């Protein structure tokens, strides 16, 4: 009886929820059916109703921020003073730019590679040493040393800056609850705002070139650092805090000696995130004049050199994997403690070794030119040969027949009708459908947000383009479910394949997505299929990853119980493993949608008619207001999904007793 008493209200709420869902869907259906007789404003908001948001924002930026508050003078001072000084110093050391400390030559590549190898060995033994040293050797012998150093000289400033800002803000958010509440929504918006929206203000306030690139990178990379710092500090066990207090620590000592060391792991995970996001911006910041790997990649693509751009892509992946692995090794590595009386050269043996190899190769480079700089003619680049291979593969008749078929079927029968249908739906009905979705998946709060967000989108005047953006995202995520989930299920069957698949996922995620856009166009033309499929490549990764992690995370007792009760493999998968893995898979699904919103903007490079196209267009001008409005639209759509799915995953976890 007690059980029943508990479950009745639950059942009641479920029933009300269903009823609300039915009402919402019913209303949307009525609006659709009544479209011919609907008043115009329910179909599409009339132009006259749309407030000139962009102009207001432009006024805000131009008149208030720039002309009255002169914020731009402050930011320009920062960009041309301290920031440029730091960037100049790293650029002088790494690529020989004429700045302080005025070294004639940049550091020889062999010295840097050798020091990287020593650091790798210190952090993770021979394997890490090989990865770190090998990455630098690869960039040098492929003739990409200078551009890699251009990139790294900016990242060497942007990443520590992101770390510092993130740490301080994170501590502040942990200390003051009201500050935490204030920045939470801001961070959520920042993480869903398309990167083009960071780029334009960066140029206007921080001057085109490496300064703007560094700032945009920093802003993009900081949010996870803030979140991880706060999480880490909140988790510090009270016993440690007590011990610190008993030792009579001052507040500053408490922070630096007790809290931060105890939150070390989370903070270092934040550092790892900062580095990875910095690398994700390498290509994107090239749009605002950041030199280096990204700039070269775009130049190569614009002169149709697939092979060379592919090589640059490999370099970016290698650098990313190297920094990722090194920083992860650093997380795991605990501080070493030496016996009292150990001689200094043992205590500092790694630093000593690094100095020795650095000086050794520096000397060698003065004698043997090759160890100083690898000329373009000496490099092992096989770009031209690769071009031939790529073109030959794309030429195979069978491949062309298959892609031609896919293009026709998907475009003419699936995608274009789907897009037209979405565009046909009256705005009012569309908003109701989104609310119904958020209600069904997440419940009341997400539904309210969905209603507010999509109404805002309708009032920005970019409705059709927003719907087209959403169409690409939905199509891509649905398609990638058909690929990613089966792949994940297959890989999860053995530990070996899980590991392999996860490595493939890592690589695919760091590989600059711009590179596969060109082969995609060659296969499928400038069409919706190309746009959707290039998003699919990106969104399949989290689906596969979280399917594997969800399935591998199912408690063994559960699967054993299923085996004992004589379930077939199929039954076990469908009735035991998948339901238990669902909450984790939902996280992957959510991430896939976030990735899709990111990638759909990049797909403007192919040729689209959505928000991304307009965003790309604003980059060439100074329309800050329009740029911001477009960015917010993308962000609001992404947030709607994010809130609904996060809520759903949390509820499921609770219901299954997993969290």
């Amino acid at each position: 009886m007690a059980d029943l008493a508990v479950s009745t209200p639950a059942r009641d709420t479920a029933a009300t929820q269903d009823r609300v869902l039915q009402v919402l869907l019913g209303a949307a259906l009525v609006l659709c059916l009544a479209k011919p007789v609907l008043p115009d404003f329910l179909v599409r908001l009339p132009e006259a109703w749309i407030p000139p948001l962009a102009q207001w924002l432009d006024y805000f930026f131009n008149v208030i921020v720039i002309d009255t508050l002169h914020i731009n003078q402050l930011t320009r001072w920062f960009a041309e003073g301290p920031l440029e000084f730091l960037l100049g110093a790293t650029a002088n050391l790494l690529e020989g730019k004429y700045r302080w400390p005025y070294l004639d030559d940049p550091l020889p590549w062999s010295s840097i590679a050798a020091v990287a190898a020593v650091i790798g060995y210190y952090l993770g033994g021979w394997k890490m040493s090989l990865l770190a040293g090998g990455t630098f050797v690869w960039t040098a012998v492929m003739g990409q040393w200078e551009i890699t150093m251009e990139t790294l000289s900016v990242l060497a400033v942007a990443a520590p800056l992101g770390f510092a800002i993130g740490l301080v803000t994170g501590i502040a958010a942990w200390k003051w609850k009201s500050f935490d509440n204030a920045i939470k929504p801001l961070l959520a918006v920042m993480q869903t705002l398309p990167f083009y929206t960071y780029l334009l203000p960066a140029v206007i306030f921080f001057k085109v070139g490496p300064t703007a690139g560094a700032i945009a990178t920093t802003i993009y990379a900081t949010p996870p650092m803030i979140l991880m710092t706060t999480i880490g500090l909140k988790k510090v066990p009270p016993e440690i805090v007590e011990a610190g207090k008993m030792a009579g620590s001052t507040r500053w000592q408490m922070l630096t000696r007790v809290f931060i060391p105890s939150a070390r792991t989370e903070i270092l995970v934040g550092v790892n995130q900062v580095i990875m996001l910095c690398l994700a911006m390498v290509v994107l910041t090239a749009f605002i004049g950041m030199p280096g790997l990204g700039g070269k990649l775009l130049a190569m693509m614009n002169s149709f050199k697939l092979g060379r751009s592919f090589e640059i892509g490999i370099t970016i992946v290698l650098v990313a994997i190297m920094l990722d692995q090194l920083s992860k090794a650093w997380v795991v590595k605990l501080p070493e403690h030496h016996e009292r009386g150990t001689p200094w050269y043992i205590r500092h043996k790694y630093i000593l070794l690094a100095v020795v190899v650095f000086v050794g190769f520096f000397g060698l480079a003065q004698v043997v030119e090759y160890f100083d700089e690898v000329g373009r003619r000496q490099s092992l680049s096989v770009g031209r040969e690769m071009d031939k291979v790529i073109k030959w593969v794309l030429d195979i008749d069978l491949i062309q027949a298959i892609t031609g078929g896919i293009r026709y079927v998907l475009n003419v029968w699936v995608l274009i009708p789907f897009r037209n249908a979405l565009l046909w739906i009256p705005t009012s009905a569309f908003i109701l459908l989104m609310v119904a979705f958020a209600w069904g998946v997440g419940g009341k709060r997400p539904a309210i947000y969905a209603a507010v967000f999509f109404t805002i989108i309708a009032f920005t005047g970019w409705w059709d383009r927003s719907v087209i953006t959403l169409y690409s995202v939905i199509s891509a995520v649905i398609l990638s479910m058909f690929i990613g989930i089966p792949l994940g299920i297959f890989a999860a069957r053995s530990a070996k394949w899980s590991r392999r698949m996860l490595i493939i996922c890592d690589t695919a995620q760091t590989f600059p997505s711009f590179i596969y856009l060109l082969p995609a166009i060659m296969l499928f033309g400038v069409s919706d299929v190309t746009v959707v499929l290039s998003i699919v490549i990106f969104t399949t990764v989290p689906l596969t990853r979280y399917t594997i992690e969800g399935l591998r995370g199912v408690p063994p007792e559960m699967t054993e119980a299923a085996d004992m009760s004589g379930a077939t493999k199929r039954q076990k998968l469908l009735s035991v493993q998948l339901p238990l893995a669902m909450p984790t898979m939902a996280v992957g699904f959510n991430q896939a949608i976030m990735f899709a919103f990111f990638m759909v903007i990049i797909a403007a490079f192919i040729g689209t008619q959505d928000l991304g196209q307009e965003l790309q267009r604003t980059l060439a001008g100074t329309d800050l207001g329009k740029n911001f409005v477009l960015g917010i639209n993308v962000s609001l759509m992404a947030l709607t999904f994010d809130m609904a799915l996060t809520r759903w995953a949390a509820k499921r976890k609770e219901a299954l007793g997993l969290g």
Partner: protein
Amino acid sequence: MKLTKIVSVAALGLATATASMAQEDSSEPIVIPIHNWSSQIVMSHVVGQMYEMMGNNVEFVTTDSQAVYESVRLGDVALELEVWEGAFGASFRTALEKGGLHDAGDHDAVTREDWWYPMWTKDACPGLPDWKALNDCADIFATAETGDKGLFLDGPVDWLKHGKERAEALDLNYVVKNAGSAAALWAHIGAAESDKTPVLVFNWTPNFAEAVWPGEFVEFPEWEDGCDTDPAKGPNPDALYDCGNPADGYLKKAAWDGMKDKWPNAYEVLTKISFTNAQIAEMAKLVDIDEYEPEEAAQIWLEENEDVWKAWMPEGAT
């Protein structure tokens, strides 16, 4: 860094020579913007190396090719070497009106941007390059999505090429689609290359693509001034954009107003510089076909064309 050493030794020698000139250039670096196409990058390095030989410090910064005029205006960069009439005329004029930059003279080269096809297309549609042949051939340019209409792949929307308007004004049976980037245009041509599929795309000259895929521009009704503002101009009395683009558009240099005072000698050189179509094509070829790095390509070009650029240098510098 052997290359730079040679250059800097040469620069040192020349710096003493320039000392005799009336006004000194500032020792602050002259910032030259580079964009994402080869000829402009090489040309910028050619001019940059000339400045270095005169004893100036030079720096390069990659910028967007439309946004650059705002940077020239503000003095963030000192000059712009390739102002294309068709592609950047509008941005240039806007910045000119706002003030801060000025026209530093034309190159000898002329530019052209228009509907274009690679040579193999002509086999399938022999009536080309006359635009009147386009409607007869519409079906050979059709794709899965366009039905029986032909596809014309226009440049990105922000290039403002009015392809759609022209197709309507001249009653062409074509779907006009905007590519998202120059790279997308090349991929489209590249995909058609192997089985010689006829394609119609937006293209321009001087451009590396001429060397990779020989082709021709479609000959539309000749451009008349006012074709974009006055419906009466051009064959269709009721429509704008019923002409081809100008076949001899200008290629200008632009300079920041402050350049004249800050680097008078470098400015003097800038006004004299004038490249021809052949020279620009040669610069692009060194990078796009011969695969030199832009700096090396500029070096080679300077070595091979001494008589050309030495004439532009100040008296003492050569």
